[in-house]
């Protein structure tokens, strides 16, 4: 053999055809097993010997985990074995839904690169749980829920509760994420995503926003989700409530951002890529730019 031949730690590979079978394997092997979806994260972790599962359970053969559904009023439901590029293509084919889930669409279209999006899954991105996962801020802005199954049944967790810290998620070894449910956004809403990627591949600060009924303080709703700058994705309700008051909307944004940053100040990450101070500034700058863009889009769509 002429070129360096890479080997992973040894393991046994399973490719179950049904959810039942997969859950049985996870129950049987517990901590010794790892789920393989797109493998983009898992294989890298195994190459770096950060993970060395004895059993690898590939979920791509499970038909019921594939595909995307939408029900008016309920929202999107994205199977755990659905590739990221399948989701963006599906939204490309449904312009109405693409507009409704614009922040999610923008974030997914910018994850990694074309080849990786053809392989990686949304659920895998969510489960990888590094702070910079691009799916986090849009999922938080739509109040998305992670649907989790085990042999003893199904449960759901809000994305902001599911992600507990770098590499930590609310998932037991015998559990499997089966899909991500993204509820219907409010009527007359616009949304968008923004991230800052310096000379590394990963965002150092991401912001997703959603705005509905902007002209009427009584029914107005503005949501702001931050990720990558913080260990876990965050929403700050008191900051969002600022928009329920009367007054100039840009001044309200100012106040809301003060509240938001005040609340998360001590959690903001600091590492060789960016200082906490810089990240804080980048949350503010992006929130402004994004909000001004959403105001324009709102007027064009609903004004």
């Amino acid at each position, binding site marked *: *053999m*002429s*070129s*360096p*031949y*890479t*080997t*992973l*730690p*040894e*393991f*046994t*590979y399973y*490719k179950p055809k049904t959810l039942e079978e997969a859950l049985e394997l996870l129950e049987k092997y517990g901590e010794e097993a790892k789920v*393989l979806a797109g*493998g*983009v994260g898992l*294989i*890298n972790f195994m*190459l770096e010997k950060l993970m060395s599962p004895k059993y*690898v359970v*590939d979920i*791509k053969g499970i038909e019921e985990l594939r595909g995307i559904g939408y029900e008016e009023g309920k929202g999107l439901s994205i199977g755990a074995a659905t590739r990221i*590029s399948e989701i963006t293509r599906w939204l490309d084919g449904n312009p109405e839904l693409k507009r409704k889930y614009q922040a999610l669409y923008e974030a997914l279209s910018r994850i*990694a*690169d*074309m*080849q*990786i999006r*053809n*392989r990686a899954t949304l659920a895998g991105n969510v489960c990888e749980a590094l702070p910079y996962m691009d799916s986090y801020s849009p999922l938080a802005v739509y109040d998305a829920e992670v649907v989790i199954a085990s042999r003893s049944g199904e449960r759901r967790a809000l994305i902001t509760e599911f992600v507990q810290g770098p590499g930590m998620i609310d998932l037991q070894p015998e559990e499997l994420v089966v899909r991500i449910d993204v509820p219907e956004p409010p009527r007359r809403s616009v949304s968008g995503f923004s991230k800052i990627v310096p000379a590394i*591949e990963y965002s150092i600060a991401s912001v997703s926003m959603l705005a509905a009924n902007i002209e009427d303080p009584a029914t107005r709703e503005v949501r702001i989700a931050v990720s990558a700058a913080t260990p876990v994705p965050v929403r700050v309700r008191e900051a969002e409530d600022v928009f329920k008051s009367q007054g100039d909307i840009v001044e309200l944004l100012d106040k809301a951002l003060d509240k938001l940053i005040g609340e998360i100040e001590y959690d903001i990450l600091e590492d060789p890529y960016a200082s906490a101070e810089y990240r804080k500034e980048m949350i503010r700058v992006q929130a402004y730019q994004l909000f001004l863009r959403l105001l324009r889009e709102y007027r064009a769509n609903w004004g």
Partner: protein
Amino acid sequence: MGQVITLKVNGVLREVEVEPYELLADVLRDKLGYKGVKKGCWRGECGLCTIIMNGEAVKSCIILAVEADGAEIETVEGLARNGRLSPVQDAYVKNAGLQCGFCTPGFIMASEYIVRRNANREITPGEVRSALSGTICRCTGYKQIIDSVLEAHRRIKIVR
């Protein structure tokens, strides 16, 4: 615990015995002889190991060989027909889309995929640039590469 997998590589059925911990890029290169599958980073970053698998451009260094059982795979070796380069390969030659050539098979496969997927629509230089953002060249500076893809796309559209 070896397992025999079946791959259809460039239209030819190949059977090969692999261990679960072997990567598709290594198996294609070293067990099956498709040396056009380059390895630059071993970790999904450089795109030099790009192949088209079941119609999708993917990075074969972060795929287990066992995951590919039953798959249809295209590598750069399969593009030329009867000694004639494919439109994408030809455009790379005409536009000097390569220098040392080490990244070229990866770029050609990624470009082939971009051109096919967009065969029925216009594409902008910006779209080509972002579609190639996961494929790295240390020599050309990319301009000639983008020009090559745009030219191949124009030619394919005319042929259709």
